[in-house]
C-alpha cells in the first residue's frame, strides 16, 4: 500500500529553483494497476524516482506499507528497494555477457540468499514473467527485445516486491512485442501484483485499471479506466 501526502520536489540550481512536483497526494492500494501519464517535463519521472525510493521528496510524506520513507538515508533506501520494489526500465538494463538466470537472480545476491535457493526462485520468476524455461542459460545479448524485457520483469519479480514500477516498459519495443509485455503485466495484476506504469502513451496507459494524469508537477485527473 502506497500513500503520498503533498509531495513536492524542488531542484535547486544556484539561485534558480525548479518545482518538479507541486504537492502531489494519492493512495494506491495493494493489487491495483495504475498508470501515471503525462507529457515529458510533467514531473512523472521525478514521481517515479520518489515512488521507487531512488530519490527523496523536498517536502511531504511517502508511506510505503505504513512506513514513512520520505526522510530515509541512502542506506535505508537501498534496503527498501531491495525488499519492496521491482523495477522495469525502458532500456531493460540487463547485465551483458551474463546468462538469463544470473540476471534474474542478481537482486537476491544483495539480499544474501544462498546460491541454490537463488536459482530456484529465479526459475520460478522467469516462468511467471512468461519466458520459456529453455532460455535460462542464454546470454542476455542473445535475446530479442521482448524476451529481454520479460527477463527484466522476472528480475523485478524475484524479490517478491510490494510494487512493480515500470518506467516506459514498451518504449524500446515494437507494438506487437509491446502488447505481449503489457499482457504480462495484466496477468501479473490478475495474480494480485500491485503495478505502477509510467508512460506518455495513452494506448499503453489504457491497459491499466486506473489512470493518474500529471502536468506541470500537479495531478490533473485521477480516474478508473
Amino acid at each position: 500500500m502506497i500513500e503520498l501526502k503533498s509531495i513536492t520536489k524542488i531542484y535547486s540550481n544556484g539561485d534558480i529553483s525548479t518545482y518538479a512536483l507541486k504537492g502531489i497526494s494519492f493512495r494506491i492500494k495493494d493489487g491495483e494497476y495504475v498508470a501515471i501519464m503525462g507529457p515529458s517535463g510533467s514531473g512523472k519521472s521525478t514521481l517515479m524516482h520518489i515512488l521507487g525510493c531512488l530519490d527523496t521528496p523536498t517536502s511531504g510524506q511517502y508511506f510505503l506499507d505504513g512506513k514513512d520513507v520520505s526522510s530515509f538515508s541512502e542506506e535505508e533506501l537501498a534496503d527498501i528497494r531491495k525488499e519492496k520494489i521491482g523495477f522495469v526500465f525502458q532500456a531493460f538494463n540487463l547485465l551483458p555477457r551474463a546468462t538469463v538466470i544470473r540476471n534474474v537472480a542478481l537482486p537476491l545476491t544483495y539480499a544474501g540468499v544462498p546460491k541454490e535457493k537463488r536459482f530456484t526462485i529465479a526459475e520460478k520468476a522467469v516462468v511467471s514473467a512468461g519466458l520459456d524455461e529453455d532460455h535460462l542459460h542464454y546470454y542476455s545479448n542473445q535475446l530479442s527485445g521482448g524476451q529481454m524485457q520479460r527477463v527484466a520483469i522476472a528480475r523485478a519479480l524475484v524479490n517478491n516486491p510490494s510494487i512493480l514500477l515500470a518506467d516506459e516498459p514498451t518504449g524500446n519495443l515494437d507494438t506487437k512485442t509491446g502488447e505481449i509485455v503489457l499482457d504480462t503485466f495484466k496477468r501479473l495484476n490478475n495474480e494480485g501484483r500491485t503495478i505502477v506504469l509510467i508512460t506518455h502513451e495513452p494506448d499503453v496507459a489504457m491497459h491499466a485499471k486506473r489512470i493518474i494524469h500529471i502536468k506541470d508537477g500537479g495531478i490533473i485527473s485521477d480516474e478508473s479506466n
Partner: protein
Amino acid sequence: MKAIDLLEETYWALTANKVRTFLTMLGIVIGIGSVIAMIAIGQGTQASIQASIQSAGSNLLYIVPGAQHGIGMQVSSGRGSARTLTQDDAAAIASQVPSVAAVAPQLALREQITAPGTNTNTQVIGTTPDYAGVRSVFLQEGSFLNANQLASRERVAVLGPTAESDLFATGTDPVGKAIKINQVDFRVIGVTVAKGGSGFNNPDDVVYVPLTTAQQYLAGDRYISQISVEAADAASMDAVQAGITNLLLQKHRISNPALADFSVYNQADIVATASTVTSTFTALLASIAGISLLVGGIGIMNMMLTTVTERTREIGLRKAVGAQRKDVIAQFLMEAVAITFSGGALGIVLGWLLTLALTLAAGITTQISLFSILLAFGVSAAIGILFGYYPARRASRLNPIEALRYE
C-alpha cells in the same frame, strides 16, 4: 553480498575481457618479477661477500703497524708501512690478553718464485703453525708448517692452489719438489684447499713459509707485517680488541692512544661495512624495480576507471536493486585486488625464472628469500587496494538515477 558471491562476480567481470585483464596484469607481473629478481641479486651478492670475509676465519682481529714517517715527520708512507710490530708482540698477546684463542703473526712479502721451467711473482707469507687454525687454511695435499720447522728455520713452503698451478703442470704432485724464492732454495711440503676469490686480493695465490725462515732469508730483519688474533667467541671480540690495544700501547711505551703506532681491526666491523654497502646496493636495485611496480599500479587504476565508466548503467542497476555503497566498493576493489594478486603470484614465478636464468647464464649468485616473496604479495595486494580504491569509491558514489540514464 556474501564473499563467495563477490568472488564469483569478480571472476565474471575479469574473464569478460580477458585480453585487457591480462595486459593490465602484465604490468604487475613485470613489476613484482623484477623486484624479486633484483632483491635476489642483492641478497646473493651480500651472502657471497660475507662468505668470502668469513672464509678468512671466524672471530678475527687484525693488528697492522701504523704509518711510517720520513725525516721531519712530513711524508707518510701509509698505514701498515711502519716497522713496529714484532713476534714479541704476538707472543705477549697470546700470553697476556684474556679470551684469546690463537695468535698468528705474519710477515707478508712479494717475491719472485721459480720452479724448473716456470716462474711467478706472488705473495709470500711467513707465519707460524697456528695460522692454519686462525685463518681457516686447510690442506689438500701434504702438511702445513710445524713447530720444528719454525724453530730450526727450515726452508719449506706450502703453496696456495693458484700459486701451485702457476708453478707446476697439472697432474704433477708438487710435494717434495724444489722451488726457489728470491734465489733461495725451498722444498714444497703441502698444497692448501682453494678458498675462492679472485683479482687483486686472491687468498689462493700465496706461498706460506715459516716466519723465522722468512725473516732470516727473505726480509733480513725481525719485524712482522700483521698479527691475526682469533678471539674465543664473538661476544669477547670487543674486550679482546681493547686488551690488545692497551697491551701494545704499554709495550710500545705510548701514552696517548691517538699516537698509536699500530691499528686493530675487527672482522665484525669489516662484515658490517660490507653489509652496509650491499644493503644499499640491494635497496637501489629494488627501488628501480619498484618504479615499474608503480607504473603497473597506475595501469590498474586506468583500467578500473575505464571499467567504472563503461559499467555506469550496470552500477545504476545494481544500486536500484538494492546494492549498498559498500557492496559496490567491495566489488570494484575486489576486481583490482584480484588482478594485482594474481599478477603478484605470476610475478613471483617470473622473478624466480629470471634469477635462475641469471645464475645459469651469467653466474651471478642469487638468493630468493621468503621475505621477498611475502613482500611481493603484500605489495601487490596493497597496490590493488591503493589504486583500486579511488575508482571503486567513484563507482559507489554514482547517483543511481543518473547512472541508469547514462548513455
